[in-house]
């Protein structure tokens, strides 16, 4: 039976607004899940995010997740972030 691990997901800017103001979610997922799977899980819980999904970039522990790279497994205590297109500077 798979262990459950805890991943903290943060939603920023437009993503947070579409999620009804939710800025942080504590996910309990199976050990062995990837960042993409965690993302899908969040979209299931906050369907309004689907309209933004194709624009969203993920970050894991303060580093961008490259969509073209091999899948990355999340570990217990990891921090995921949903990053809409940035506009600083």
């Amino acid at each position, binding site marked *: 039976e798979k262990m459950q691990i805890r991943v903290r997901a943060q939603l*920023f*800017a437009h993503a947070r607004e579409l999620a009804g103001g939710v800025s942080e979610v504590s996910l309990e997922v199976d050990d062995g899940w990837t960042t993409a799977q965690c993302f899908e899980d969040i979209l299931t819980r906050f369907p309004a995010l689907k309209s933004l999904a194709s624009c969203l970039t993920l970050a894991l522990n303060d580093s961008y997740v490259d969509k073209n790279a091999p899948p990355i497994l999340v570990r217990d205590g990891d921090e995921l*972030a949903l990053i809409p*297109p940035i506009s*600083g*500077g």
Partner: protein
Amino acid sequence: MASANGKVVEEEGVEDDVVEIKEKPLDIMRYMDAVRDSSAGAIATFSGTTRDTFEGQEVLELRYEAYETMAYRELRKICQAARERWELKRMAVAHRTGIVPIGQESVFIAVSSIHRQDALKACQFVIDEIKASVPIWKKEIYNNGESWKQNSEFLTRNTT
């Protein structure tokens, strides 16, 4: 680092650079003083200031938001990348969050170097990189709506 004759050579590095994200007006002079150096001959700075118009529409207010831990990390990576490309003395980079009134600085960059080319080029590089990678967002508030802006520099870099 030790030089060839064994003496310890002090080298400016990114650990000395000033990197700040704060919900207060940016203190420009403090950053300029932070990079001023008696061995440097040049200081180049860049300020991004908030505009009162976007595509003909009047902007009433701007709000900035940052993913702070990652933004600090990305800013330091940018400073390190700049140091690898140019001979720099000191750097200071600051971004404001929260409500930024029209005409005020949202971002400020200061770089010092011995020769002006390095500071000028590094300054341009830093603002270009900030716009492409630092997780900070801007929302424009108009009379009849609001809009989360998107940097083309980020979209270009992240197009699969």
